[in-house]
Structure formats: C-alpha cells, structure tokens
C-alpha cells in the first residue's frame, strides 16, 4: 500500500474556453491547488496529457486523479478513462450547479463577485473529493 504521506492527487480540469463553466472549472481547480489543498494536489494539463506528455502520463499511472468537467461532454473524464484508467472521482460543474440550485456564471472572464462565490462553492466540493481520495474513500 502506498504511504499516505507520499500520495498526491492529480486534478485534471476541463479548460472549457467556450463556456463560463470552463472558466469556473479552471478557477476552482486553481483555488484547490493554491489555497485549499496545496502540497497534496497537482494539476494535469489536459491537452498535454492527451497529446502524450510524458510527465502527465507517468503521474496518472502512479497516482489517483480527479477529473473536473464543465459540461456533460466530460472531456476530462473521457480522456482520463481512455488514457490512464478510471479516475478516483469525477466532478461535473453543471451537476453541482443543479444539485445546489446555483445559477452558473454567464461570463467567460471577468467574473463578478457573485460568480467568485460560486467558484468557492465548487472549490470546496473539489477539496472534499480530494480528502475522500486521500482517505481511500470513494
């Protein structure tokens, strides 16, 4: 069994340039990486991972991953499943919005203060998922 202290979780984020939910995904992931779970999470650049980036592929072969997708097309989840196996957890922003009855941002950039609250909500959900994975939960 892998030493818990050595485990890091890879966050594979949708980049979704076309959609506000993609921006939400990116910002929430960075919040987790930089503020909520620094030291236990790393980011996996999705296009680089898909394009065959050696570091990205090596990491996902050894460590658990969480995919975060902006929409139901689930590019991050599908790519991870195809290239390195089932992610430990998969999060879809639109599903979180629906479950929590939150209105998603309508802008792709220059988010409002209200939008930033939504980023925080998504980041906290993702941080919980990281804790679950680190504790060996599903």
């Amino acid at each position: 069994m892998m030493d818990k202290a050595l485990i890091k979780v890879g966050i594979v984020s949708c980049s979704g340039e076309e959609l506000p939910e993609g921006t939400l995904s990116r910002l929430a992931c960075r919040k987790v990486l930089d503020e909520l779970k620094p030291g236990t999470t790393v980011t996996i650049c999705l296009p680089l991972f898909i394009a065959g980036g050696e570091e990205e592929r090596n990491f996902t072969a050894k460590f658990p991953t969480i995919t975060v997708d902006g929409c139901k097309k689930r590019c991050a989840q599908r790519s991870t499943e195809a290239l390195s196996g089932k992610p430990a957890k998969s999060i879809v922003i639109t599903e979180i919005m629906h479950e929590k009855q939150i209105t998603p941002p309508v802008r792709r950039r220059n988010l409002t203060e209200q939008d930033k609250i939504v980023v925080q909500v998504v980041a906290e959900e993702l941080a919980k998922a990281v804790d679950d994975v680190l504790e060996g939960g599903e």
Partner: protein
Amino acid sequence: MKKPTGKVVVIPCSGIGKVYGALARETAYELAERVRPDTILLTCLPLVVVGDEQAKQLVTENPVITIDGCPMKCAHKSVESHGIEVAQSYQSISFYVAHKDLKPEGVTELDETGRKLAAVAADELAAVVDSLAGKEPK
C-alpha cells in the same frame, strides 16, 4: 488553404498553470468578444482533442488560428493530429517579446498589464483574422 467562410476559429492553450496560457486565452477572448465578435468562433481545445463531432466540423470547415502558451504547442499539434491545417499559429510569449513594456503576471487571471497586452495582441491579430475570413480590413 481553406476557402474563406467569413468565420475564423480561434483555439487557445488550455493550460491552467502558467501565465502564458492565461495570456493565450485572454487574447482569444479579446478577439471573440471585442475585436471581431462577428467573425471569431471559439471552441474548447479538449473537445477538439477528444474528437467531438461538432468541434471537428467547426475546425474542418473554417480557417483555424491557434494560440499556444508554451513550446509544447498542444493547441497547434492537437488540431493537426486530426489532419486539419492550422492557418496561423502563435505562441503567446511572442506577444510579450514584441511588447516588453507589458509584462504579464497572474495564472488564473491576468493582472491589468497582462490584460492590456492581450488587448494589444488581439488588435494586432485583427488584420490576420480579416484576411482569413475573406473580409476587408476594418
């Protein structure tokens, strides 16, 4: 070279870890939302990479500009990997090299100087967009 369709697809880098990825994305948003909103179509890079039919159709039918954030050139390579020609390819660091007085900072969101650089870069790309779209320069 594709025949002009009046539209141009811009695909920026999807990285969420480096300032030049953010600069690539912001430049694409400047083009799509301010400089040539009637011409520019944005699509998500991961959608292209996973072979989404709608995204593939978009990049097959229209001229494509890629703006990459690092020398791995994921956007450029991902489009080409589908056998689709990239009409113009840029690396966002070249915008900074051309405007050394505008050093961008920020990863999730660019600082004011970075946003100014993105605006300048988008203005400079307008002529290329017009040419690829088959439109008279404005």
